[in-house]
């Protein structure tokens, strides 16, 4: 299941304009291959919009998205996901009403080797393929430590587990890179610590290239090898967290607003 080296991922000069608002302005980021890259910035800085541009939910007005040198710019979301971009959402988006196991199993559809006609006739092949899907789903659940919860309904879970389930669902696709949009939002300090361990272990076990948007600086500090700070749609600094935190532009942006997200 593990990869020797993490996928190279970068995007150049991404720009998105909503009406008159330049939500993302000429943003260039090169992720740490096989490592964890952080994106920080105040509310409305354009972080989630960057993820939506990468994953195809918004069409960029300019710029280029490259996964292992393959140009993903302007493709449909499902094509981008199929190319190896897994993601979670800032507001958790589970398949409500489905069991935990089925939430993950659904994400395995591309690896199941049967077509509509096989399905309609329920040929014997389906049984073995579905068995394989269940095993793969259980494997993904084990990875996030949620095996015991497999029968429960996704939406009945506490917040922290819902976030884990969303990660497991993305991992089931066997993505090359994983985008996490504020995975620690709404979690208590204990849950945040668990999440840090989880992300670290996923990164270590799978050698997965991870991009994470986060306000929790302790999470960023303990996970990210490289950090990009955004403000008003632009990247104002990039480097190690220490470098970024001492960058004049960042100090100016944070102090200027009189608010920090510690």
């Amino acid at each position, binding site marked *: 299941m593990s990869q020797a080296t993490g996928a190279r991922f970068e995007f150049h000069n991404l720009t998105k304009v909503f009406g008159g608002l330049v939500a993302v302005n000429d943003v260039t980021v090169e992720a740490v291959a096989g490592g964890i890259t952080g994106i920080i910035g105040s509310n409305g800085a354009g972080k989630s919009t960057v993820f939506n541009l990468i994953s195809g939910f918004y069409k960029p007005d300019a710029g280029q998205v490259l996964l292992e040198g393959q140009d993903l710019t302007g493709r449909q979301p499902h*094509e981008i996901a199929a190319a190896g971009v897994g993601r979670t959402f800032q507001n958790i*988006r589970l398949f*409500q009403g489905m069991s935990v196991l089925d939430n993950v199993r*659904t*994400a395995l559809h591309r690896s199941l080797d049967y077509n509509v006609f096989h399905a*309609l006739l329920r040929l014997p092949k389906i049984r073995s393929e579905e068995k394989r899907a269940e095993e793969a789903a259980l494997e993904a659940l084990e990875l996030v430590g949620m095996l015991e919860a497999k029968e429960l309904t996704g939406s009945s879970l506490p917040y922290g587990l819902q976030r884990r389930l969303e990660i497991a669902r993305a991992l089931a696709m066997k993505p090359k890179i994983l985008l996490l949009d504020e995975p620690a939002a709404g979690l208590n300090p204990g849950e945040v610590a668990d999440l840090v361990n989880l992300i670290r272990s996923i990164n270590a076990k799978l050698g997965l290239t991870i991009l994470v948007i986060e306000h929790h600086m302790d999470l960023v500090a303990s996970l990210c090898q490289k950090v990009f700070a955004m403000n008003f749609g632009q990247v104002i600094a990039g480097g190690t967290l220490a470098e970024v935190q001492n960058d004049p532009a960042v100090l100016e942006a944070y102090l200027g607003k009189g608010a920090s997200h510690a």
Partner: protein
Amino acid sequence: MSDYYTGLLVFTCVNIIVTAGLYLLIGGTGLVSFGQAGFLAIGAYTSGLLTTRLNWPFPLGLTGAIVFSMLVGVAIGYPTLKLRREYFALATMGVGEAIRALISALPNFTGGSVGLPGIPQKTTAWVVLLLTVVSIVLVRNYLKSKFGRNALAIKTDELAAKAIAVNVFAQKQIIFAITCGLSGLAGALLAHYITYIDPSMFDWNRSAELVTIVFVGGLGSLTGGVTAAIGVALLPEVLRFANEARFLVYSLVVLLVIIYRPGGLFGNYELSWQSLARIWRKLTGGARKEGAA
């Protein structure tokens, strides 16, 4: 079987077949088609014309009806399945009426509003029963596969479905094609039973009735849809003394369901061999076997 009961069986099964397909669409993707009567008409006229004008045999007529309905479904689905749910409902309503208008407008070809008589009577009790069971099994199999999970994912959260690489549009196209194919089959079976069809049989009320059946049965239950389809087919018989009261009773049933069982009569309950076995055990006194694996 007397003609009366055969007729009742055919009408009931026609309802079940359309409902199975429509359930797949509504229960699967959340899209509601208000134009299925139009696809019944396409099936009825395709097979009716093929068997009367070209003397095709009945099985080929049925096949032609299914295939042509599916093709029209794909053609209609292409521009409409990307629309928001509300607009899809409106668009299909228009399509249903347009199909009916088109049939009326081509008297030389279809018999127009006078209708198409002399369709060979080929739909027997056994044929219709067999095809009904096959239709239900096909829909059930679809829902039990990865395609069923994809559909449920689309219905629950289209964005999240896209994020796990589900091609939402393609999945909707497949489902709508199946829905329309089954409607076409049902229409053809109907035509080959009543031997005479005219456009007024496939009006908007019919489409609305079919949607009502699925909602009353429950969006999470094929069993519910099938039961409701049987109910709606038998209701006119029960209420024969007062045909006018029929729509009153319909409306009342729908209202009561909305108020007391918003998830439909059956909610998410699905009849299965296990549940049948459970019922059987209860009926036979509940002699329970323990520890048998």
